[in-house]
């Protein structure tokens, strides 16, 4: 998807006499094609994270912690030091790294099942300790990697392979609003929910990610960006339908907003 990058575009206009590169692979991404499904939000989010790392000039002092989930192979794409965490434990692994290397920048990259089900405890306590890490929380309302089972963030009525008649809250639980919960934790500094379904949403996500890294660079506390992300494959939709579903349906349960900002 060609994004309308403002800086790149004006550069292009200014340098019209010479051929200028206006869209290139971020340094923090390896030259490896993504394995993600067509229309998957993970690819866009990877690129945004890499761009932000480049822009902040922190590639050589960043350590990433990918999850168990569709993004488990993120280390094949990010050209920074990467440590794979057990399912749900990214915040704890990141804590261990950051405590030993407080001058480095540590980010986790986690799905909704990873961060809001099996890893809820690790996440809440990392936030509450004001752990100086940046969490990238990719909410696609399902367990993508394992084949589309119900996730903590599956919305009421949503059909998944383990909620075949739709999610029924008093049987399956309500969709969990982890970001709001983390906002209550005194150690969290900045929490925003964005989406990557429109150019504007993508730019907002990029900005939010940059801020979430800067909060860490300024040693302020825990920062998290929750990104609503299409999973056409498990939603059984076309990429275009999936984008529309995020905008029209998913955002009703998970409204896009700054949840906390005391940075």
């Amino acid at each position: 998807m060609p994004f309308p990058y403002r800086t790149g575009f004006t550069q292009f206009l200014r340098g019209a006499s010479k051929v200028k590169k206006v869209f290139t692979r971020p340094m923090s991404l390896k030259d490896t094609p993504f394995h993600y499904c067509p229309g998957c939000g993970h690819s866009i989010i990877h690129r945004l994270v890499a761009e932000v790392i480049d822009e902040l000039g922190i590639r050589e002092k960043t350590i990433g912690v990918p999850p168990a989930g569709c993004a488990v192979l993120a280390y094949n794409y990010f050209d920074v030091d990467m440590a794979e965490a057990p399912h749900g434990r990214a915040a704890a692994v990141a804590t261990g790294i950051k405590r030993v290397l407080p001058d480095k920048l540590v980010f986790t990259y986690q799905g909704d099942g990873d961060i809001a089900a099996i890893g809820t405890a690790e996440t809440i306590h990392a936030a509450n300790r004001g752990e100086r890490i940046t969490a990238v929380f990719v909410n696609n309302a399902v367990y993508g990697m394992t084949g589309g089972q119900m996730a903590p963030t599956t919305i009421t009525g949503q059909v998944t392979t383990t909620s075949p008649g739709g999610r029924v809250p008093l049987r399956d639980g309500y969709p969990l609003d982890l970001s709001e919960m983390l906002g209550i934790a005194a150690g969290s500094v900045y929490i925003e929910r964005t989406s990557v379904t429109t150019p504007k949403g993508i730019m907002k996500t990029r900005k939010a990610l940059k801020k979430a890294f800067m909060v860490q660079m300024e040693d302020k506390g825990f920062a998290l960006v929750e990104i609503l992300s299409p999973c056409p494959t498990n939603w059984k939709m076309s990429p275009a339908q999936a984008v529309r579903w995020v905008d029209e349906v998913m955002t009703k349960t998970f409204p896009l907003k700054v949840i906390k900002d005391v940075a």
Partner: protein
Amino acid sequence: MAGKVLMRGTHVLGEAAIRAGCRAYFGYPITPQNELPEYMAAAFAKMEGAVFLQAESELASINMVMGASIAGARVMTSSSSPGISLKQEGISYLAAMELPAVIVNMMRGGPGLGNIAPSQGDYFQATKGGGHGDYRVIVLAPAYGQEIADMTRAAFDMADKYRTPVMILGDGMMGQMMEPVVFPEPLDPASFPKKDFVLDGCQGRPSRIVRSLWLDTNLEEELNWRLVRKYEIITEEIPDEEIYLADDAEVIVVAYGTAARIAKGGVHRAREAGQKIGLFRPKTLWPFPYEPLKRLSRKIRHMVVFEMSTGQMVEDVRLAVEGRCDVSFYGRPGGVVATPEEIARVLSGVYRRLDHGRGAAAESGHTFRSVGSA
């Protein structure tokens, strides 16, 4: 702290860890080992750059250990039985990722919540896996305060040398007991050679990955065989044991840790009564010292395995003995601590019956069964 000092086991372990260059500790409170994290917290509070963190669970703490190890630190966690169960996930990952770490288990009565009394019910868990997958953990079993100090130093060295998790397996009694100890000279972590797997940002080098997922089955198989080759080297290099009064012995008691100290008391009493009884004490539980025990089994007639459990190490003893002599088991599980007199009675009973048929009869009230014979 030069010369001999009198300290309890948990504090000995903490001091020895710090002297081994340990600068990161993550844990969660559980009796009977709380004096160890408390020692680390107090000491690290005074040390620049040292990390003490009380985690929200054992699950979190072992994963913090993973992170600290990835970041290059000599790192330790400690717990007691129920907490060690929670750590098993992380231990499997540490083994798979070939990350050094030291894990202390001060065993208590179990299963379940059990109690807080000293026990040895976690032998299987420690030596036969515990977590999922094909892996081993080096398991060191100190019995004396001085050994706690020496083995803790060794544990950190082995963890780094072999890039593998190492467990120190003790029990609540050992943790509480005050004993005189001489510590080795402290090491300066700044003097350690740089580890080539550490993630500290890819400045001036290609980026690195620490992982345990190998979707390509050939690569996962390769990892498994690489681990096996490493385990073979460890099995050659580190098995260790104490053999005591065995030269003329006809009966040998096999025990480790606190049980071995009690058993030694039993041996002394039996010797006073003129009975030729000795002791075999494994100091490494994995790798188990099969070879020396095998050699011993050729010249003695009966082995009594004494454990503070219902019988776990006895299976390794039988593997070593392979039917060359009788093997019986005497166990006091559930946190009960046997007395040396009690063990002396058991050993003397076996000794007296040597010429009256094989095996030994049950001593009233306790499990005492013959679990294998030639």
